């Protein structure tokens, strides 16, 4: 199998990695780059645990051919906040009890971020649509939806200033 150089922007930094044509983005992130924050729950695009943002849109990294990412911008959970400077979504998820086992959390937060990046006044229906592809078996989604709304409010206030 012939490997190819994949160049892309990951969490704001340009990088190049050698990948095989059959590799998927999630395997490149987790196995090659050691970014295990992106989880793999099904490998078939059916659970959303592997959700990352690609060129501004939420995608299932387990069904994205790695080479399709050429020159693209990818954001993962590792790139959106730091312990001392959490993303408002991370903060709300923590504060409002939206995290239980945590396995869906990174994908859930990335789906929510893709929404809030373009819409700071989402309705509950908007939020449900954005996260309907992210299965959570622990929370019943209620506190997750509350956390997304709360984060949107926080971000809006910040933007209004």
């Amino acid at each position, binding site marked *: 199998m*012939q490997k190819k150089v994949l160049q892309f922007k990951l969490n704001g930094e340009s990088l190049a990695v050698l990948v095989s044509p059959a590799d998927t983005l999630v395997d490149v992130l987790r196995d090659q780059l050691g970014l295990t924050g992106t989880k793999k729950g099904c490998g078939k695009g059916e659970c959303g645990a592997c959700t990352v943002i690609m060129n501004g849109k939420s995608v*299932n990294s387990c069904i*994205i*051919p790695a*080479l399709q990412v050429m020159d693209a911008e990818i954001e993962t959970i590792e790139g959106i906040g730091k312990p001392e400077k959490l993303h408002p979504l991370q903060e709300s998820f923590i504060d409002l009890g939206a995290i239980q086992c945590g396995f869906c959390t990174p994908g859930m937060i990335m789906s929510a971020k893709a929404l809030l990046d373009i819409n700071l006044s989402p309705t509950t229906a908007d939020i449900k649509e954005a996260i309907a592809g992210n299965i959570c078996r622990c929370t019943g989604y209620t506190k997750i939806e509350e956390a997304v709304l709360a984060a949107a409010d926080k971000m809006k206030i910040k933007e209004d200033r």
Partner: protein
Amino acid sequence: MLKDYVLATSVAEALEVLKTYDGKARVIAGGTDVLLDLNAGKLSVDCLVDVTRVAELKKLENMAGQIVIGAAVTHSEVKKSDLIQSNAPLLADASGSVGSLQIRNTATVVGNVLNAQPAADAAVALVALGAEVEIQDPSGTTYRPVQELYAGVGKTTIDCTRQVVTAVKFPALKPGQGSSFVRLAQRGALALPMLNVAVVLSLQEEKIEWVRIVMAPVAPQPLRASMAEKVLQGQVVTTELISSAAKAACAESSPRDSAIRGSAEYRKEVLEVIVRRALEKALAAAQ
């Protein structure tokens, strides 16, 4: 065994690569299904030709009354498009009910057709719209109705190892025309439909000038309810008429038993309800 992956920048380049591999390369767009099939060993190719970067395939436009959707246009783009919402709202609804947002952000409308699944939501809507695809291959450009692209469940008559489907196009809805897409599924996302029905119709005064009713999955491919269409054609709309059209549609269907998505009996009976609702909705839109 997959050896190469080419991000084509033009249709010509894609065709060139296909030619070089002589049947061992395959076109992909979003690749959501192809990659799964490759990994499951259901498909074997040497090279994937990715057309998502081909600028001309990203088009989504109205060309003299024809809506043209390029092969790299995703379900999300179609769903959000003002052009589609005003000229083919049923397609916006159909694309909007595929899988999940993440899937819709990568999977394409053309891919939905070429995947040739009997209940592919966008394809069902496209058949109702009378859509045809634009095909390019070494011999030139040809057009074929979406309805004629099926060669069995999961099999398309398009040879993706030698041909590139560049777009799908259909006439924009005009005033007096209405459409609908009605779907019955076991849950609100990440679910294939138990039934889906697309209707496009044209009203002239009180009469139905013409109508296309497409139902799935009640046959190996999206099925035109021709008898039901005949029942309606040229008639003044009444509740009884809609009801007998729905019954006729039902009689034309031959759904299969699915242990997961409902028995043939259930689907056949409820199809009548779904067709009726779809007709009512399309009529309301037309009026």
